[in-house]
Each structure stands twice: as structure tokens, then as C-alpha cells.
């Protein structure tokens, strides 16, 4: 029971890191980016390829996955995403789903459609018992890393100069520009960090979630649920939504495997009908 809860929390944390970048682009920049999962997949494949082909140790691949995906995100932002900012939401949805289709078929073509395996280092394998709760070492590692990231992210957004610039640029780009803030640069950096986080999440999750070319499509709905249920105005909203989703999913799969994803979707519809702006969204926000 508590073991399940622990697994659910680890799963939720992972979902949070995967989707927080999306919460930023979607909530702050008002861009519906369905291709977010593709960046996560890029991070996952970076880790897999580095480990299996070049023998880079697991821990070293994590920052590399982050960096690579962030650079990829920056390049895409500059070339493809920027013209789409002021377009209707439907155009953005179609545009980004087009990117997903390309990514899925492209990875399938280059690397192959089989599921990729990674082996985490010895000291992260296995599990130990703590007061009757079975704790997987790797899950614990995920929780710690993701928890640290969450705190860091919250600090950056609320305490630093960059955070306040970002919030200003989001609230009113014209005024922000007038105040001498380089809005384009702020958005570029934000998008890059968001993609990088997705890549890091993909790298961390490769062992838990599995990695195959249809990854972006498979988890796209989960990311979207996290963001829409959590509301896009805060970091805590998506965090709680991700935890809720992770726990509900793990419990659902254990106790009622026949129902499958039914619980998750039904829960989402109920919450969104009750609070259309998300659990912690504020009325009148974008």
C-alpha cells in the first residue's frame, strides 16, 4: 500500500519534470506545444545512445541530455516556433502535432522501432525496506533529483531577476519591451530551459517509462493532463496535478488493471468540468 504510494510519488515527480517545461510554454507563453514529448524523447535517446554506444556513465549523461535538448529547443524556437506565437491555438496544435509525427517517424527510421534499454548503475538498483515500505533505490533517486529541481525552479521564477523579467514579458510583452527587457531573448531562454527539463525527464524516465519512437504520442496526453489540471499560472499547480496523476495511475493499474487509463481520463474530465482553469489556475489568466 505505502509502497504503491511511494511508486506513485516517484512516477508523479517524473511526470512533473517532464511536463513543467510545457506548463511554462503553455501557461506563460500561451503556446500549445504538443511536441513537448518529442523533446523528452530526444533527451531519452541522448542518454541511451551515449551509454550504449559510447559507454558514458549514467550520471554524466543526465546533464548532457539536458544540454542537448535545451540547444535543440533553442534552435527550434528561433527557426520554427517564433512565427507561430501569435497564431490561433488550432494552428499551434496542428503545427506541433506535425512535429511529433516527424519525430516519431524520424526516430523510427534512424534508430529503429524496438524499445531501448538502459541499465542504471549498481548502486541505484534494487530496493530496501524502510518500516515496511519497499523503496526502490532508483525511484528514491528520481524523487530527490526532481524535488531539488522543483525547488530550484520555484526559486528562479520567484526570486531572481530573470524570473521577474519572464513574468513581466509574459504579462505584457509590449510594456516589458518598453522597459528595456529583451523579450525575444527571455522567451528563447525559457523555451530552451523548458525543453531541456523535458529532455532530462526523458533521460531519467527511460528506465521507468520505457523508450520507443511512439513515446511522444504515448505520453502527450499525460503531459497535457498535468498542465491543464494543474493550471498554468503556478509551479505548484502542475506539481500537485502530476503527483495526483502519478498516484492515481499507479493505484489504478494495481487495483483495477481492467479499467486501464479510464480512471485517469474520467478524473481529468471531472476536475476540468468543475474547475475549467485547472485546480490552481486563476480566473482571467491566459
Amino acid at each position, binding site marked *: 500500500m505505502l509502497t504503491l504510494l511511494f511508486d506513485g510519488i516517484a512516477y508523479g515527480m517524473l511526470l512533473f519534470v517532464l511536463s513543467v517545461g510545457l506548463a511554462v510554454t503553455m501557461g506563460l507563453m500561451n503556446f*500549445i506545444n504538443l511536441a513537448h514529448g518529442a523533446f523528452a524523447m530526444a533527451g531519452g535517446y541522448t542518454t541511451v545512445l551515449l551509454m550504449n554506444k559510447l559507454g558514458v556513465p549514467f550520471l554524466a549523461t543526465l546533464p548532457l541530455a539536458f544540454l542537448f535538448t535545451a540547444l535543440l529547443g533553442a534552435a527550434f524556437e528561433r527557426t520554427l516556433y517564433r512565427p507561430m506565437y501569435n497564431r490561433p491555438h488550432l*494552428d499551434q496544435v496542428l503545427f506541433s502535432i506535425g512535429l511529433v509525427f516527424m519525430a516519431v517517424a524520424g526516430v523510427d527510421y534512424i534508430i529503429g522501432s524496438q524499445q531501448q534499454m538502459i541499465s542504471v548503475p549498481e548502486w541505484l538498483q534494487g530496493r530496501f525496506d524502510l518500516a515496511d515500505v519497499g523503496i526502490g533505490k532508483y525511484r528514491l533517486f528520481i524523487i530527490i533529483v526532481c524535488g531539488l529541481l522543483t525547488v530550484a525552479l520555484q526559486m528562479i521564477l520567484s526570486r531572481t531577476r530573470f524570473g521577474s523579467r519572464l513574468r513581466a514579458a509574459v504579462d505584457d510583452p509590449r510594456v516589458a519591451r518598453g522597459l528595456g527587457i529583451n523579450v525575444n531573448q527571455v522567451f528563447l531562454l525559457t523555451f530552451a530551459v523548458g525543453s531541456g527539463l523535458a529532455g532530462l525527464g526523458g533521460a531519467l524516465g527511460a528506465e521507468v517509462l520505457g523508450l520507443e519512437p511512439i513515446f511522444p504520442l504515448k505520453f502527450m496526453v499525460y503531459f*497535457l493532463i498535468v498542465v491543464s489540471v494543474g493550471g498554468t499560472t503556478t509551479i505548484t499547480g502542475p506539481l500537485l496535478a502530476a503527483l495526483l496523476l502519478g498516484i492515481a495511475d499507479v493505484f489504478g493499474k494495481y487495483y483495477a488493471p481492467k479499467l486501464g487509463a479510464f480512471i485517469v481520463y474520467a478524473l481529468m474530465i471531472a476536475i476540468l468540468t468543475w474547475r475549467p482553469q485547472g485546480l490552481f489556475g486563476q480566473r482571467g489568466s491566459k
Partner: protein
Amino acid sequence: MSAGTSLEKVQASLRAALGWRWWEIALAVVAIASVFLSGRHALLLNEIAILALFALSLDLILGYAGIVSLGHAAFFGFGAYTAALFAKHVMPDPLVGLAVAVAGTAVLGALCSVLIMRGSDLTRLMITLGVAAVLYELANKLDWLTGGADGLQGVVMGKLLGTFEFDLFGKTAYAYSLAVLAVCVLITRRIVHSPFGYSLKALRDNRLRTQSIGLSVHLRLVAVYTLGAAVAGAAGALMAQTSGFASLDGFEFHRSADLVLVLVIGGTAYLYGGIFGAIIFKLLHDLVSAWTPQYWTFWLGLFLVVLMLVGRERLIRPWTWFKRGGQA
């Protein structure tokens, strides 16, 4: 100018929009001729007609009323299962089955319309997607009723109007689908050129303003969503009846996504957009997947990205692609 004459002018312009254009008549002639000339392509043409009908229903919702939806397959699949189950357990007459499926989907649409009233585009995308996913899971789990992952097989249809039998070549099926499509186009055409249709467009363009001139937004949204659902249900029913098969595939996400693409190719808020879109999409699909069966989604994705980046209006004018500042 008095109020009377301006009202007459409005009525005259409404009537003018309803008048038949020469190419609409030509289109009808081509459609009727295609039934007799279809030969062995009847099955493909049948699929195109069904897809066009499905796209027409999304156009009502998305193009005219501005409700974004990623789960329109919910109604398609529901219509398909209703028609198939009805034929299997109650009676095999296709027209009665179609009517039942349409009625059933309309009820479902009315129920779901409550869910899409509130929130932003994102919320609506998620809720429509969620409804389709929930129905998918239900159809998968209730295997005693729906056959689960194997789908509902062995649906035998009776003769159409008691005389025409559904054959292997699909000629009857195509004529049947085409007739339903024609009826739906006529109904939709009447609706979008009516004052109700204009109020929908007003609501799409500016919901707040529509509300403030005293139109009931919610009532209109319920009406159009129910109608759109019913038409999508008809498309699903046609699919199940002409193929004798209903499967989970009807609910899948990619069906909704493809549909939005069909509509975007053909043009939204344009009555014939769905029809032209369906023709182009099916032909492209057949060509590209014959060329690269495994990776055709890549080309689909590339097409979408380019289409969105340059805009639909400019896609057919490649020489304008690299001009600066052109807002499509």
C-alpha cells in the same frame, strides 16, 4: 433609410447566399455520375464520402462555431457501435439503424456539450480528447457487448430500401453514403446561411460581444454541438454499415487528428471544405503510403508543419513563401 428597407436588404442578402451556384450543380452532377462510373474504386470513394461527412460535422463545430476539438472521433465511434449493435441485435434495416445511431449520438452530443461550455481552448481540447479516450476505454473493457479489442464482427446488413443489396464491390454502399452525405450537406447549407448560422459565426468571432447584444451563447453552443455530433454519428454509422464491422479504431486519437487535418486542407468555415479536404487527404494518403508504407507519417508531419508555417492561403502560391511580413 428606414428600418423596413434595411431589414428587407438583410433578408435579400440571406436569400442570395442560399442561391445555387453553377459549380455546385456541376459538383452534384459529377457526384451522381461517379456512382455509375465508380467501378472497382467504389470502396475508396465510399471511404471518401464518409470522411467528407465526418469532416462536415467537425466544420460545423470548429469552422462555424469555433469550438476546438481533438476528440471528435468519440461521436464517430459511438455512431459506428450503435449502428452495428442495432443491426446485430434488433433489426438489420440500414435506414432505421442510421436513424437510431444519429439519435443516439445526438443525445451523447447534447450531454457532452455541457462539458465544453467553460474554460479556455486548452480545457476544451483536453475535455474533448478525454471524452473520446473514456469511450475508447469503455468500448475496450465492455467486451461482452462490443467485442473488446477484436471489434464487433459479423454485422450483416439488410437490403437498402428492401431492394438494393450491399455487395462486395461497394457500389450500393457508395451510393448510400453519397446520398446521406448529400442530404447532410443540404441541411447544413440551409443552416449556415440562416440567421442561426450567422449568429454562430458572430459567437465564434467574439463571444463576449455576441452575449452582450442579447443572444444566448450557451443555447447556441448546445444546439450546434448536438447537431455536429449527430452528423458525426451518421458518418460512423455509415462506416459500420458499409463495412459490416465496428472496432476500437473508430475512437482512436489519430482519427480525430486526421480529421482536423482534412478540414484544414479543405478550409474551415467553408461548406465544401470537408469534401475537398477528404478527397485530397485520401488520395495523398493512398499515394504516399504506397510509396513509403512505414514512414508516411513523417511526410504527413512535414506537410502539416509547412502548411502551418506558410499558411493555407499561401501554400498554393509558393512564390510568396519567403516574402517578409506576409501574415497568412
